């Protein structure tokens, strides 16, 4: 099991080793120690490898991840899992701004809190946050699911497209074009599956409210001009 100590080994060596993984390689479990807030740790990985990062990371950890299962045993800086395509990233601590930004697929689990703009412009990723999320989360979110067990900050889902938002706690305010929607059976089913995938069994899907787009901004209408 390869171990990279970022206190002595350059980040470039770690990422190059991860990018060089070829089909059929045996080393599919990597440990990273002393990340000490390094940026772009395990970014651009595109192999079914498991990476455990022991400590906190800086910006863009796991950026554009494909297939890899990455666990951060600490907190993550801004832009964790940005533009993720597939695979899974778990943050044991808190995440800073823009977690899962523009993510296209895969699952991001944040066991602590996430800061502002969580899921901004998300395009198909599923994000599950055990704690709270900050303001302007899911801004212009296009597709995928954002699940929040705690509370959401101001302007949730502003200018939302087709992404679904589920919040268990209170919502400070909704953004333009974002409305609360009925939780139908298919949403309960979807949410139950997402929670199970995230390893969460102590809450029930029925405790959540669902939010989505009212689609009033989908084509320009001058009578909605205040919302643009």
């Amino acid at each position, binding site marked *: 099991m390869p171990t990279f100590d970022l206190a002595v080994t350059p*980040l*470039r060596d770690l*990422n*190059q080793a991860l*990018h060089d993984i070829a089909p059929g390689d045996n080393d599919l479990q990597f440990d990273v120690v002393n990340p000490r807030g390094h*940026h*772009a740790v395990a*970014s*651009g990985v*595109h192999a079914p490898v498991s990476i455990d990062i022991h400590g906190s990371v*800086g*910006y*863009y950890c796991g*950026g*554009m991840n*494909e297939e890899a299962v990455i666990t951060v045993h600490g907190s993550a800086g*801004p*832009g964790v899992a*940005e*533009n993720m*395509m597939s695979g899974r990233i778990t943050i044991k601590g808190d995440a800073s*701004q*823009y977690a899962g*930004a*523009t993510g*296209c697929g895969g699952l991001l689990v944040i066991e602590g809190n996430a800061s502002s*703009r969580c899921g*901004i*412009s998300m*395009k*198909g990723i599923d994000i599950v946050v055990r704690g709270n999320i900050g303001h302007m989360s899911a*801004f*212009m979110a*296009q*597709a995928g699911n954002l699940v929040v067990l705690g509370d959401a900050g101001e302007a949730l889902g502003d*200018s939302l*497209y*087709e992404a679904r938002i589920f919040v268990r706690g209170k919502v400070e305010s909704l953004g333009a074009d974002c409305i609360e929607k009925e939780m139908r059976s298919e949403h309960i089913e979807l949410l139950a599956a997402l929670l199970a995938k995230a390893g969460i069994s102590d809450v029930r899907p029925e405790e959540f409210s669902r939010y989505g787009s009212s689609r009033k*901004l*989908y*084509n*320009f209408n*001058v*009578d909605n*001009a205040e919302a643009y």
Partner: protein
Amino acid sequence: MSYHNPPTKPRLSATFDEYTMSEIRRAAATGIYDIRGGGAKRKLPHFDDLLFLGASISRYPLEGYREKCGTNVVLGSRYAKKPIELKIPITIAGMSFGSLSGPAKEALGRGATIAGTSTTTGDGGMTEEERGHSQTLVYQYLPSRYGMNPRDLRRCDAIEIVVGQGAKPGGGGMLLGQKISDRVAEMRTLPKGIDQRSASRHPDWTGPDDLEIKILELREITNWEKPIYVKVGGARPYYDTALAVKAGADVVVLDGMQGGTAATQEVFIEHVGMPTLACIRPAVQALQDLGMHRKVQLIVSGGIRNGADVAKALALGADAVSIGTAALIAIGENDPRWAAEYEALHTTAAAYDDWHEGKDPAGITTQNPELMKRVDPVAAGRRLANYLKVMALEAQTIARACGKNHVHNLEPEDLCALTIEASAMAQVPLAGTSWIPGKGGY
């Protein structure tokens, strides 16, 4: 005897001219601002306001068409393991699939490849039409991140982080519902037929310090192989160039306000930004102040039309130029053979700019399958290649006349200005004088 008092001739207002009044009536009737494509149409100080000082006795010219005058340019030599080398210093600017049809993208790729230069993707992702036919392809990384994926990042030749563009510095993208076909909708992960508003800011960074870290991430993802360009709209070129260099850019792309867009508000196109001519010297000054001129390359775009424009931009300190609107014209946009159809759209074959409506008779700025068939990518690509080669030849001809054996050896000393405005903006002397407004004499 009665005195005949002749009626006063009606006097039209210079402020409320016919165009302005028609725009007021249009706004009142529709409740939406005018949206169009292209760049600024008003007359602005431009390259036409500069002239070259050919060699006589005090300078020694090279023999036209015989003595060598190089045109090649290397882009991305600062950090990238695989910098790009182009045969000519004229690149094709980013234009999105969605805004442009697939055959138009293919034509751009074919033409650029024949001429030995690059094309650039645009907002909406990479298409096989372009990747398959463009030998050197720059992949734009935009605020919307429509279609962005690491697979395409790995198969491009350079990455261009778009912070802004000349037609709308500070503005986001706009692709109206009528152009959102099934394919465009799928590429952008959005429903078909809706207006696609793309953000004016990148979602996951907020300032130059963040940009530096973003560039690091993109380099890490692509193993430090590909040049990273940073594109800015011409507004504060000195500071924006300096900050792009500080953030680690290999190349700065500077787009003046004559640079085009697929669709945005007319008021934005005509009233925000700076003329291309005014942008170049401050950007070059920033590079020189940082000791990075020619180390971080500068690509200038916005209204480049011919080899003289190319030569003037290079003489002012650019390493290369980029063309968008001119490339579209070369492959057939606004072609007079569709005159009747342009007239049916209440415009002419010289002024059509409602590209967002998806009705382009030339088949270039549309997703209509029938109209798209009008673009023959092979023939259109050939026309673009011819045009690019002519521009390079023209620039070489001028450079030789100034005694230069490479177009990059042109310098401000080779120029004079026809107007005080151009003299001040380009920082070259007014013709027949040694005077540059704002500077002392020689």
